[in-house]
């Protein structure tokens, strides 16, 4: 599903590379935590998968494609198979819950009938049935993140990338979000989640990848958070 082959990434104006010689494999259907302190290279790792950045050295394969060889105009097609969730939700404040989710389908040109069917379905799945017409501002943080997850999942991506999805939420709400992500993972979707939440990582006992100053320092199946911060 994802393969990093001694991948390094340096940004033009920084002397220290953000990633150094990272090699790893993530198989289809896996649930992977990505941990590490701020500046350890987690975001760069995710951006490389999304092809928002290109690797300086090494190869990044996502969904069987070498991203270095993927031409710019094919990138959108690739991204349709990925779902993304962020710490700050990134919802459109002037659209309702249903419209926010539908937006992800409209902009890739899904037919209207399909959208009308898929949106209530996915909102039901994330536990927001009946809140279709609410505005994001009227919802709690946990509910907003559920909308974001619904939007990421509505196109049934093969891979879900979550960048600190519980970073803005209280522990109890976070647990609910994690249960949801776990459920999505069980449908066969690979999930990669960057996090700082020790409790969640320790509870879930999934594969843990730890980055430190751009280096891969730990890759442990059924791991724990592992370091004090």
């Amino acid at each position, binding site marked *: 599903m994802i393969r990093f082959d001694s991948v390094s990434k340096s940004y033009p104006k920084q002397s220290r590379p953000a990633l150094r010689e990272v090699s790893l494999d993530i198989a289809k259907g896996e649930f992977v935590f990505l941990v590490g302190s701020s500046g350890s290279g987690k975001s760069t790792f995710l951006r490389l998968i999304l092809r928002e950045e290109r690797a300086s050295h090494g190869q990044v394969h996502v969904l069987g494609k070498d991203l270095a060889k993927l031409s710019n105009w094919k990138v959108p097609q690739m991204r*349709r198979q990925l779902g993304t969730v962020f710490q700050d939700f*990134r919802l459109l404040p002037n659209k309702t819950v249903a419209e926010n989710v539908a*937006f992800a389908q409209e902009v890739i040109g899904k037919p209207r009938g399909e959208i009308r069917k898929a949106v209530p379905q996915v909102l039901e799945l994330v536990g927001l049935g009946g809140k279709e017409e609410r505005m994001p501002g009227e919802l709690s943080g946990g509910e907003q993140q559920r909308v974001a997850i619904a939007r990421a999942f509505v*196109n049934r991506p093969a891979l879900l990338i979550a960048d600190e999805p519980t970073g803005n939420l209280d522990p109890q709400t976070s647990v609910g979000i994690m249960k949801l992500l776990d459920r999505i993972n069980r449908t066969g979707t690979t999930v990669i989640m960057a996090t700082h939440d020790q409790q969640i990582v320790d509870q879930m006992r999934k594969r843990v990848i730890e980055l430190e100053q751009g280096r891969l320092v730990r890759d442990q199946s059924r791991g724990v958070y592992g370091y004090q911060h």
Partner: protein
Amino acid sequence: MRAQFVMSEIGVGLRRNLTMTFAVIISVALSLALFGGSLLMSEQVGRMKGYWYDKANVSIYLCNKQDAQEAGEAAASSAGGGAGGVATCRKGAVTEEQKKQIESELKAMSLVKSVTYESADEAYKHYQEQYGHTALASSITPDQMQESFRVKLKNPEKYKVVTSAFAGRDGIHTVDDQRQAIDDLFRILNYLNMAAVGIMAIMLIVALLLIVNTVRVSAFSRRRETGIMRLVGASSFYIQVPFIMEAAVAGLIGALFACAMLVSGQYFVIDHGVGLRDKIQLIDFMGWGSVLAKLPYVLFIGLLMPSMAAFIALRKYLKV
């Protein structure tokens, strides 16, 4: 589905930037009105040229007795210098032989369409008809009038051939081509037209810069949407279309205003209102066909130019 989505996005974008949109519309309208105006102006000039060139003819004035006398006096006083009087009249008034010679030579020229002879008496009569009411006219006698040949040419542009062939010959006082005077007028009109084109170019640059800026502001204020669109895999074409269409719609509205200005210019200045067509009958003004024929160009440029500007502005801004 897609179309409706795109249309609503465009509407939102244009309203959000209302002041900038107005600025774009006005500058596009003015630059395109000037563009259409200068097109029409150069067509009008061409038309007037054809019309007046056709009416105007080359007149070859022949020496009369008075001319010969003046020339002789001048030659005597300044010892062979050409000052005062016309040197070619020094040998006396034009003779019948010279007249015949000139006429047959004129008729032999392939360039010449027709030659008419005007006697001094006829010239006097025409003069009295035209200026009879003035004080000067009453002091003029038929003796002072010159005989002349009025020459019409097949190709009026080539009047200089006739001038160079006959000017300076004995018995010919002057070769007067009215086109010389017309040419000066056309030169002025041409400068005016060039000035209009220059102003148009500056307005066009202003319009393009405004469009680039407007599109950037628009893209920035919608970066949240476009960010999400990128993440869920909307094609860059799909992301850019609303912005490009926004610019195109503003440009089209501007172009429509420009068309309205051109049409009302024709209506109020030439046909009715100021009514130049009735007031200045000497000028053959262009008709509606000419004006209407320019409108598609104006609309096309009004649509294409802002779209291109928007596309270029976005290339930097909305990367994949």
